[in-house]
């Protein structure tokens, strides 16, 4: 299963490296979103710095949608889905591979966005361990839930509009928890119970959707 996962992830990442969609389109999009937030919230009043955690995660969420959509649009051409289905690879492995590739791209985008938040919003990235742990758990959760919904809507003609409608409400707890955890780490939020419960929730989300994908992906790939 893991070997299959590595195979699929390697294939997806190789496609990304050659097509450069993530670097040439999604990454600039992420930066544009950050700039747009600065237009929407007056930079002079310190709003941006205080809201940086939330804005960062909203931008990540948007990027996740694009990454997932991209991950399944490469399968739609030339009947690649059928190839994948008939390849004899373990469906759970395919799921882990696709989710892993999406997660890796998200990590790269998060690094870029974090740099953007520091440079553009003047945020001081304190509490590194919590920030990194939040990123890890949230990224896995987003990639897993995104991949489940990605394959669910992959073969459909309305997938561009359907995927955000399906994914955004499901991913809302990730946005909420990750933002709160970052606020605790950055010291921009109100007094709370610390980042612990939020991190726990993110881990639970990630575990639930990875497990769901591993179990259900076979049925989805066959029937969808």
């Amino acid at each position, binding site marked *: 299963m893991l070997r299959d996962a590595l195979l699929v992830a390697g294939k997806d990442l190789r496609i990304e490296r050659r097509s450069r969609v993530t670097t040439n389109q999604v990454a600039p999009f992420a930066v544009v979103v950050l700039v747009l937030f600065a237009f929407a919230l007056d930079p002079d009043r310190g709003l941006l710095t205080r809201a940086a955690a939330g804005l960062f995660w909203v931008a990540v969420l948007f990027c996740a949608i694009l990454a997932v959509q991209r991950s399944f649009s490469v399968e739609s051409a030339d009947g690649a889905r059928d190839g994948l289905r008939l390849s004899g690879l373990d469906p759970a492995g395919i799921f882990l591979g696709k989710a892993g590739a999406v997660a890796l791209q998200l990590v790269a985008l998060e690094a870029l966005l974090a740099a953007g938040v520091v440079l553009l919003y003047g945020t001081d990235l304190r509490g590194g361990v919590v920030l990194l742990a939040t990123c890890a758990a949230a990224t896995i959760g987003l990639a897993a*839930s995104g991949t*489940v*919904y990605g394959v*669910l*809507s992959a073969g*459909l*003609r*309305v997938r561009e509009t*359907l995927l955000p*409608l*399906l994914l*955004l*409400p*499901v991913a*809302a*707890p990730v946005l*909420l*928890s990750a933002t*709160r955890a970052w606020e605790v780490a950055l010291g921009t939020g109100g007094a709370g*119970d610390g980042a612990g*419960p*939020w991190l726990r*929730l993110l881990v*639970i*989300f990630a575990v*639930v*959707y990875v497990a*769901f994908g591993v179990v*259900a992906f076979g*049925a*989805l790939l066959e*029937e*969808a």
Partner: protein
Amino acid sequence: MKGTATTLTRVLGFCALVTLAGTVVLGLWTTPPDVVQGELVRLIYIHPAIATMGEVAFGVTALASLLYLWRRTRDRRWDLLAGVSAEVGVVFASLTLVTGSIWGRPTWGVWWTWDARLTTTALLLALFLGYLALRRVPGEAGSRATRSAIGGLVAAVDVPIVHYSVNWWRTLHQGSTLLRRKPLIHGVQLEAMLLGFVAFALIYAWLVVHRYRVEDLATRLEDRGFETALAERRAEADELLEVVS
């Protein structure tokens, strides 16, 4: 058969109407205004009942999706039930938000507040609107049902996570009025509220049964139409073949 009504649904509908009328009479006229909430307490006789039935509806969707996915109980009836219950649930959840909003405006001074239960309900509604959108995508019946069932489960799995995250985030809503050791309300108020629960449960059941029959009829007619069209095309082809030979 004139429509989708049968004796069962007529009895069900009659009971629903009677209990609903009872709730309205008790709620609007018989019960006294509350010491704290004044006249607004009257919304308590319908709002929690509607909210509960919305949650029950989504629970039924999740359960039916699970039963459809489990091979030993796989049956298109579960798929139909899941979709129908979600649709009725969306109606109830929307009404929950509306009545809650109407209660919140004079009580809290705002139509909307980022309270835990409000936010959870809104997210629940968004989740199941997505589910209904997914169901509406045309496709081969079997694969559409599997797709919908998995989509429904993905959404249902999210509900407890949403619940906890939002609860930690905000809590302002007044606690449950009924499910305490000592209920906060007594006598005729309690009766009105319980009758409201019965009424909306019956309404839910009536709506689901009717909507289920409608959906069943619609899919059957669609299949039949498809078969008729197929038979016609075959007949045309045969005629052509005869002409050629």
